[in-house]
């Protein structure tokens, strides 16, 4: 079952194990420059608001397209060219209950670049495993390199979905979560509890550009700048996952400019630019787990054009200039680091 608790999606599998749950949040962040350089992990600037689509489908049906109601799930507001990352958090015991998670944008798998398939298939290696993978910032284009998730209006031609399928059909984000089998989890717990010292806590953790042609209230995810991020292979094997228990969710990405009309609430303000953030001396982050195998990245996703490349090709100006960004302070928040280190500037810095 999936519940919306505040702005967090909570996946629970009480039929598998009392501990079986994982939490997913969508973090606001800086858009990294789309200039061919590889950037470290940008900060989390707070969770995007999430709302049940059905609440507003009934309240303001004229503002909520029928297809949103049909697919259900939740919705959140993003501005054109705004970036985001996905945060995964497990329970409180030893970093969380292991789960295998498939993530897609516009029904294109964010790890493999292939069309969405809900089933887990070890040969495809197209899913992530939590708590080993605490965050996902974008499309996996090569080993240890991703292209940042950047929202663009569906229909404008920028989204990865449109570039790969030549259709603007789905937009949004799709995910399905499989919990670890009870027996396997309990065996791991026994082993870990015998050596509690090993426990490693996962860090949690007014522009005036023209609207892209063909804009709609639906947003899709396009490929932004390059970032160093490891996407870890499944260290447990397919046999570890309870394939009879899964939950899936469609996350509609709504244009932030229409969020108030739909919900009556103001959307979050635009995040600062990467240039302003860096010039303020605020930190970037790095997460590196040397002992885990990483996935090689998708050749299909590597061929996708970034927002900047596509905008140049179309002769459109759809986002602000990236500016000169040289991350100075980079904080290591890797798995061996303290639980209290989170991927966000401290309140006193922000």
């Amino acid at each position, binding site marked *: 079952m*999936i519940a919306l608790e505040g702005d967090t999606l909570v996946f629970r599998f009480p039929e598998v194990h009392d501990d079986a749950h994982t939490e997913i949040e969508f973090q606001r962040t800086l858009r990294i420059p789309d200039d061919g350089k590889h950037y470290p992990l940008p900060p989390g600037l707070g969770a995007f608001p999430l709302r049940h689509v059905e609440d507003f489908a009934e309240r303001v049906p004229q503002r909520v397209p029928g297809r949103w109601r049909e697919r259900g799930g939740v919705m959140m507001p993003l501005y054109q060219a705004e970036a985001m990352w996905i945060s995964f958090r497990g329970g409180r015991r030893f970093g969380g209950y292991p789960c295998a998670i498939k993530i897609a944008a516009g029904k294109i798998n964010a790890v493999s670049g292939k069309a969405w398939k809900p089933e887990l298939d070890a040969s495809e290696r197209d899913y992530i495993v939590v708590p080993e993978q605490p965050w996902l910032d974008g499309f996996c284009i090569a080993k240890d390199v991703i292209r940042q998730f950047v929202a663009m209006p569906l229909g404008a031609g920028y989204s990865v979905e449109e570039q790969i399928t030549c259709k603007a059909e789905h937009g949004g984000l799709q995910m399905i979560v499989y919990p670890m089998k009870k027996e396997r989890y309990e065996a791991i717990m026994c082993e870990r509890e015998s050596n509690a010292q090993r426990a490693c806590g996962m860090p949690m953790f007014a522009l005036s550009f023209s609207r892209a042609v063909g804009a709609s209230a639906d947003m899709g995810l396009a490929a932004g700048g390059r970032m160093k991020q490891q996407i870890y292979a499944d260290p447990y094997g397919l046999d570890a996952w309870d394939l009879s228990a899964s939950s*899936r969710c469609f996350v509609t990405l709504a244009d932030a400019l229409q969020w108030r009309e739909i919900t009556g609430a103001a959307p979050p303000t635009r995040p600062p630019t990467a240039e302003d953030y860096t010039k303020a001396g605020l930190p970037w982050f790095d997460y590196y787990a040397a002992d885990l195998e990483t996935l090689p990245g998708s050749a299909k996703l590597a061929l996708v054009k970034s927002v900047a490349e596509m905008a140049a090709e179309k002769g459109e100006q759809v986002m602000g200039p990236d500016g000169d960004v040289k991350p100075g302070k980079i904080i290591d928040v890797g798995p061996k680091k303290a*639980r209290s280190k989170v991927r966000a500037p401290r309140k006193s810095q922000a």
Partner: protein
Amino acid sequence: MQEFGDYVRRVRAARAEADSQFSLRQVAQRVGLEPAYLSKIERGLVAPPSEATIVRLAGVLGEDPDVMLALAGKVGSDLRAIILRRPKQFAELIRQLKNAPDHAILKVVREVRDGNW
């Protein structure tokens, strides 16, 4: 409220074994309290602090704020507001769920509706 103080001390001490950032002084600093005051809270010499302080303390310790508020004999102001909006229905609901097992209570939680996609 010795139970609250014991809980805070036990959790903080367990974290401090692996990470010096959970020393009494450092936790107090991050929560915005005087170390001497946090020490008194842990020993049950003073009443539990305000709701806002307990929520901050839960955040620093990585604990559930609702559980910590309950240990302090408090109910979060958000929950209070929810109950006060429909006191009769929520009072009845809570009484009915009093002895229900966890999995039955979870069934009452509103699920995110999945559609066709």
